[in-house]
């Protein structure tokens, strides 16, 4: 019987009422009296040396408040990178400066050169057109392998080359790895591209900043997943402002997907300009600006080799990846191809020897950083594609080959630095086989063939490391931040509760799911609990929402704070009931004395806490507690996905007929929200697999610079999904036993789609063993006819 409230109930998303009735409050809805508008003049060439910038004509244009160039920011810091990666020789990564406005050179199309602040946006834009910029165009650095060669043009003149780092994880002894491969009965090799993506949240980025001369305080409203992180980075590393004088607010945010984690130059610019102009300053990105200034995702070129013994056991895995970082280091860009990617190369399998090699490159393209999944989709795609290819080469069932090599004993130490605490990969695969109706596939294939279509079934597994992570460990790995989170549970006199959380909800449903937990712990109605987030002046210092961490990390802090509240409330109840604290029990919102009929209600205790006439002298009045929570380990959601496609052999068009996800997320608070998260993730995964592709031409011009050429998935591109999360092995180290579900769909789905397409083509007698994503009609047709 499904529950109708508390943990495990599919409570309706309360935030949707305001979103669906137009009552949301997004950053662009915020307008401050007297505000001026910013227009950024952005480079239209990919690589060039700035010879001169003449702003004199622009400055005298109507409505112009001030024109800024890189010169105005010579005295402040640049955009910082939050993770220092150490290369395989022990040297720190090359870390070039990232100025707010270009200094000396422009390094990608969209790099901001100047900014005009004016009374209206149109005036700012008119003035920007009057800025005379003389740029000497330089050869653009685009191809990663060519960029690594001696003598290649340099993106950053002060660096020795375009290589940010050469990184390695796993077995460091090349001879040992070579020996494994030379002794192997079979080696499968695959070269593949993980296509560059543009996150494209529905809401473009916006920043509104104001400065008060009276109090010397700043307020920045911004489209962020983590307002405290933005405040810390901007204050400490960029503008040199005292944190206590700066308030950062991320109100309703219309989708993030990772690209709103990062601290962007436009945020720092608006904050700086609000004081410099002594006026509130507003910037709203156009969709075109989003395409050329939001951090992009993926963009790996990899070679992966899998070694198997004569019994088809995996004995070795080796990868060589070129990872594109773009022109500058975005906030967490350096960690994505390394600690969020290399560590996942073991997947769900007990491969004893693994060596991961990653060469991260600077190119004249938009910076690349975390996008839903962040490194883990790139790892999963390589691994699950090469396993599928190996199964086909060996003529064995791809599911059986996976099952044979599954990790079955937990905890399990991988050769790539992780310890999986728990999982049941065979159990999850059993759920998939049933939910996806593998048994009925031959009949469905026959039916498709009767209509002249090729049908394929693709299966893959995934594992991800979420709930990032113990601060002491990530610190050793180069993170320049802690990765705990925080919650304050403030009980009001009348018993209602405000929970101030460091996590930020921008689609995840925290406002609904988090109260379910607190309600369950106390035994009161969910409607008595409100979640407060997104404002550094209201919430404790938290690290925000990304990496499927909100419930596992911030939710744990909330549980700890609620436990403290309950412990204190029990003291008050014991006093009121004239009983020993140890005998007090809390159930259904009533404190009772064990073994008696004496009780006092939650509301009476909370009122007493704030009207402490009859109160234990040794206890402080009030009922409010804060907890910080630093996890002991990552969490490891895992799953198995199945995709069935039809391919039109005449046109190469791929349609997804069925998609089934079996996930193990541990315990689940709100199954409906989890379904929604999985649906959204799969939608984005299908987008990557079939449609989305960010393409630059040989001069560094972005060809896919609008929705006319960048194909976002639409409702009719995706099927009705079957989602099964009944396979549950609770996380062993957080109080709720939860693992996180936000990225799973985007991680697990691309290989399932591509595996299914290959299966379909081979069933039709086509000798195709790989097609790079997006598996567009033209690419499928070309592969079939090559």
């Amino acid at each position, binding site marked *: 019987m499904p529950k109708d409230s508390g943990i495990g109930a599919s409570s309706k998303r309360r935030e949707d009422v305001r979103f669906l009735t137009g009552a949301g409050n997004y950053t662009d809805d915020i307008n401050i009296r007297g505000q001026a508008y910013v227009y950024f003049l952005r480079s239209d060439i990919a690589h060039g040396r700035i010879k001169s910038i003449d702003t004199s004509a622009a400055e005298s244009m109507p409505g112009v408040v001030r024109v800024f160039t890189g010169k105005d920011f010579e005295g402040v810091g640049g955009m910082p990178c939050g993770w220092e990666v150490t290369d395989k020789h022990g040297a720190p990564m090359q870390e070039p400066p990232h100025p707010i406005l270009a200094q000396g050179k422009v390094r990608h199309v969209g790099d901001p050169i100047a900014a005009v602040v004016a009374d209206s946006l149109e005036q700012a834009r008119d003035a920007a057109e009057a800025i005379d910029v003389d740029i000497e165009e330089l050869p653009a650095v685009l191809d990663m392998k060519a960029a690594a060669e001696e003598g290649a043009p340099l993106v950053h003149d002060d660096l020795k080359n375009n290589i940010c780092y050469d990184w390695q994880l796993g077995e460091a002894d090349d001879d040992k790895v070579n020996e494994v491969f030379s002794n192997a009965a079979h080696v499968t090799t695959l070269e593949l591209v993980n296509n560059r993506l543009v996150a494209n949240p529905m809401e473009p980025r916006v920043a509104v900043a104001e400065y008060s001369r009276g109090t010397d305080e700043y307020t920045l409203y911004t489209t962020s997943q983590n307002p405290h992180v933005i405040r810390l980075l901007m204050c400490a590393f960029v503008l040199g402002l005292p944190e206590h004088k700066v308030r950062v607010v991320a109100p309703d945010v219309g989708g993030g997907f990772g690209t709103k984690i990062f601290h962007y130059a436009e945020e720092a610019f608006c904050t700086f300009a609000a004081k410099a102009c002594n006026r509130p300053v507003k910037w709203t990105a156009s969709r075109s600006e989003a395409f050329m200034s939001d951090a992009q995702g993926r963009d790996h070129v990899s070679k992966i080799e899998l070694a198997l013994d004569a019994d088809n056991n995996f004995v070795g895995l080796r990868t060589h990846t070129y990872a594109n970082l773009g022109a500058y280091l975005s906030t967490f860009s350096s960690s994505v191809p390394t600690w969020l990617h290399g560590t996942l190369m073991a997947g769900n399998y007990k491969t004893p020897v693994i060596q991961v090699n990653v060469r991260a490159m600077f190119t004249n393209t938009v910076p690349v950083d975390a996008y839903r999944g962040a490194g883990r989709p790139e790892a999963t795609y390589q691994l699950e594609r090469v396993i599928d290819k190996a199964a086909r080469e060996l003529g064995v069932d791809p599911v059986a080959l996976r099952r044979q090599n599954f990790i079955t004993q937990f905890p399990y130490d991988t050769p790539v630095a992780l310890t999986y605490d728990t999982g049941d990969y065979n159990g999850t695969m059993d759920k998939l086989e049933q939910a996806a109706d593998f048994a009925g596939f031959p009949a469905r294939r026959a039916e498709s063939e009767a209509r002249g279509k090729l049908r394929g079934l693709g299966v893959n597994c995934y594992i991800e490391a979420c709930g990032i992570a113990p601060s002491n460990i990530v610190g050793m790995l180069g993170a320049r931040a802690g990765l705990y989170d925080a919650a304050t549970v403030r009980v009001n006199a009348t018993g209602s509760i405000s929970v101030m959380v460091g996590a930020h909800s921008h689609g995840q449903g925290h406002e609904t799911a988090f109260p379910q937990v607190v309600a369950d712990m106390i035994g009161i109605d969910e409607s008595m609990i409100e979640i407060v987030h997104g404002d550094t002046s209201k919430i404790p210092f938290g690290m925000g929402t990304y990496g499927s961490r909100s419930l596992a990390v911030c939710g744990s802090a909330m549980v700890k704070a609620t436990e403290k509240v309950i412990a204190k409330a029990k003291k008050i109840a014991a006093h009121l009931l004239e009983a020993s604290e140890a005998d007090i029990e809390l159930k259904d919102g009533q404190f009772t004395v064990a073994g008696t009929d004496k009780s006092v209600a939650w509301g009476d205790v909370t009122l007493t806490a704030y009207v402490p006439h009859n109160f234990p002298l040794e206890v402080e009045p009030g009922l409010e507690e804060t907890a910080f929570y630093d996890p002991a380990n990552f969490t490891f959601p895992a799953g198995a996905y199945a995709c069935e496609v039809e391919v039109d052999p005449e046109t190469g068009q791929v349609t997804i007929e069925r998609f089934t996800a079996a996930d193990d997320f541990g315990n689940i608070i709100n199954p409906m929200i989890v379904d929604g998260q999985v649906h959204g993730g799969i939608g984005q995964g299908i987008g990557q697999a079939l449609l989305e592709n960010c393409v630059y031409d040989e001069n560094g011009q972005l060809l896919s610079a609008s929705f006319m050429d960048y194909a976002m998935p639409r409702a009719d591109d995706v099927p009705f999904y079957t989602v099964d999360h009944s396979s549950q092995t609770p996380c062993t180290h957080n109080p709720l036993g939860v693992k996180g579900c936000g990225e799973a769909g985007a991680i697990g789905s691309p290989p399932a789609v591509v595996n299914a397409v290959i299966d379909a083509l081979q069933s039709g007698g086509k000798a195709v063993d790989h097609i790079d994503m997006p598996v*567009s*009609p033209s690419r499928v047709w070309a592969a079939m006819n090559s």
Partner: protein
Amino acid sequence: MYNFEFKNPSTIADAVAALAGEDAQALGGGQTLIPTMKQRLASPATLVSLGGIPELKGVCVEDDGSIAIGAATTHATVAREVADKYPALADLAGHIGDPAVRNRGTIGGSLANNDPAACYPAAVLGSGAAVVTNARQIPADDYFQGMFTTALEEGEIITSVRFPVPQAASYQKFLQPASRFALVGVFLARFADGVRVAVTGASEDGVFRWTEAEQALNKEFRPDALMDLRVNPMNMIGDLHGSKEYRAHLVGVMTRRAVQACI
């Protein structure tokens, strides 16, 4: 967007007069022009709206049985009003863009713009329709003169389009995955005196008639009659959504499907 003068005439004569002004531009449904102006890629001094002229709107059947569609008639109206009279044309109009585009965009605007991937040019050329202007009547075969180029003179306004109604017709559109314009669209119409095949989306010269296919189908109206025919990939568009060869291939596939749909 730059500032501009806006004129909203209520007669064709007033519109023609307004368009004689310096740097004046006619505005149909604005589905191409307005986004272009917002991006500051177009900056007419005066916009002359054709949306307030009653005689440019609506659908009627002429004495000879042909269908006349007013130039300012929206795609949604065409889709609704010719559904019984010319189903293939209604189907085409009903699948342009999305509902917002279909309720603003007009047939005259589409034809005046002549985007090489637009749908309407295929219907007009494939039907052998006539483009009627304030000054003359232009046969479809003379009207389309390459990408974004037409026979319209400066200041000349399309007033209506007259479609002869074929015995059977079909529009087969293969979608460009991002824009959902036609990567290749084939409009095939079968008349008593022969078959017409018009192709949009594919060629660097804009919409064109595939005359070899027409000849083959005039001999034998079945898909297999086209099996040995292929358009020359040389003149096809090649871009990130499909190579020249792929588009050439799709012209064949879509034409065969159009034939199949007419049988």
